[in-house]
């Protein structure tokens, strides 16, 4: 097995009496595409926010790129990219201005920002839109831009929270091509999704139910284990028992 870049051990987050994430333990290795599945309200986003250093765990341990989630959140932040469920580039800035701003606060030099920005815009085919406000772009383009900005500073790991929600199938396919390209360059991808076809694209997936990880394996092994023909059936078999939903 390759070097682990994400390790969690009984990682837990409580909000009062509510246990959002309950003692989850797993490892993700470098360059892996790790699918993080679960029904709405299963605790995926909470877990991901802890791994990104946005939320302090209640108990348990985790290390991201070798840094501790309690004490070294700022070092973690230097080494990861994050794309939240909610679109969070600045809608009142242009494509180029967003790239410049996020490049700048990750500490990239101005020539490097310019060079990377040009390449990014060319790869996305956004030459015509580079000077348009981001708010005016269609959702699919926004999401692709968001992803590109999240990996602008060459992070070791990128966390994607439902990156393709509401996006058309063609754009989703393009999006996954971008994910594969990043993974080929050695970036570890940690992604949540509700699309089971996307789950099939992952190297390994975990399925969370009511705050716990109920299954973790390659898509093929999971289907075998549950005697299911598709990931849909696997998911259904596990999530059916869920007590909480949104």
């Amino acid at each position, binding site marked *: 097995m390759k070097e682990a870049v994400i390790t969690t051990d009984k990682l837990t987050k409580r909000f009062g009496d509510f246990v959002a994430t309950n003692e989850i333990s797993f490892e993700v290795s470098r360059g892996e595409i790790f699918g993080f599945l679960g029904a709405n309200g299963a605790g995926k986003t909470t877990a991901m926010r802890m791994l990104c250093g*946005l*939320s*302090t765990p209640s108990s348990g341990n985790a290390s991201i790129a070798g840094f501790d989630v309690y004490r070294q959140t700022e070092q973690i932040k230097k080494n*990861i990219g994050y794309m939240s469920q*909610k679109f969070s580039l600045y809608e009142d800035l242009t494509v180029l201005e967003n790239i410049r*701003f996020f490049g700048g606060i990750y*500490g990239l030099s101005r020539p490097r920002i310019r060079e990377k920005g040009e390449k990014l815009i060319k790869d996305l085919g956004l030459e015509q839109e580079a000077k348009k406000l981001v708010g005016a772009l269609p959702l699919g383009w926004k999401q692709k831009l968001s992803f590109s900005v999240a990996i602008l500073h060459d992070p070791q790991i990128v966390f994607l929270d439902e990156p393709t929600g509401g996006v058309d199938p063609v754009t989703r396919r393009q999006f996954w091509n971008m994910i594969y390209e990043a993974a080929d360059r050695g970036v570890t991808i940690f992604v949540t999704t509700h699309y089971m076809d996307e789950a099939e694209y992952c190297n390994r997936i975990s399925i969370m139910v009511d705050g716990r990880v109920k299954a973790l394996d390659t898509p093929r092994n999971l289907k075998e284990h549950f005697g299911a023909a598709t990931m849909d059936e696997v998911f259904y078999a596990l999530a059916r028992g869920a007590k909480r939903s949104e």
Partner: protein
Amino acid sequence: MRTILFLLEKEFRQIFRNRSIMLLVLVMPVIQLLLLPLAANYEVRNVNIAIIDNDHSSYSRKLITGITASGYFRLTGYLFSYKGAMSLIEKDQADLLLEIPRGFERNLVREGRQQLFVAVNAINGTKANLGGVYLGTVIKAANDDIRLDLAPQQAGAPPAIDTVTANWYNPLLNYRVYMVPGILAILVTMIGGFLTALNIVKEKEAGTIEQINVTPIKKHHFILGKLIPFWVLGNVVFTLGLIVSRLIYGIVPQGSILLLYGFIWIYLLAVLGFGLLVSTFCDTQQQAMFIMFFFIMIFVLMGGLFTSTDSMPEWAQVASRFNPVTYLIEVMRMVILKGSGLKDIAGRMGVLTLFAIVLNGLAIFNYRKTS
């Protein structure tokens, strides 16, 4: 440092793109400074007076002429009964009621004294109060005339103490000279405080702050990146205000302009720090708006713009020492009207520096990148 430049670039682009903020900063202060000093008038004119003259003598007429000629009163009723006059007060058509008793002239001449009865509608406290004082002055003047009339042969009038008042720093007692610096102080406070508080909360609502929190940005860089743009806007508002005061009201600061700016620079840091601190506690713009309203109302009403802090109860005077607006209004009036120098305002500068450090320190402390 480099990070701050990127933050500033972004913030200024967003501000210049937001037309309502530009309007707020450029147009609002000008309009308010044109309107408010004209409306917020301390001077009481047009006090409605109803007079019941039961005497119809030459002295009573003299007194009435004196009252109507003073320019402060408007005779809204000339009646023959107290009851009729009282109904004018009830209908809000009279603020004051003066009753001249029967035999006014006769008693004055024969007995040398006579009482007048004045009733005041105290619903509008200031108007009643000042109207009563004016009326007293007018009656005293009429009294002096009558006295001279009756005893011209006496060597001089009966001894009376007369006072001559010189109004320093505002010789014509022009209330605008007094109000304009105060209103400008409030404009700077409102615009600076509200804009900063709402700005960060807006990023919380949009979710963009999460994208910032997941970067390795330093907390004090982020706060400075928010503070500096609004500090610059605050200076723009203040400068516009000074220009309006000069062009429209002819108010030229007696003291050093540089000193005034020096004070405003520290003051803005304190007020913006307060706005930032409020924003760290709020999740929605609505919350931030209401909390800011709550404090700004208290700051303004207890800051000595409309009512002098010296005449407040002791607890309020103590509280006003924790109110940054009090210091700004005082210093604005001191430097603009009186020409006070650095030595005179150094203590207040020190206090505000402390405010600025504490408020911004708390804002940085309370801003959480990790919840």
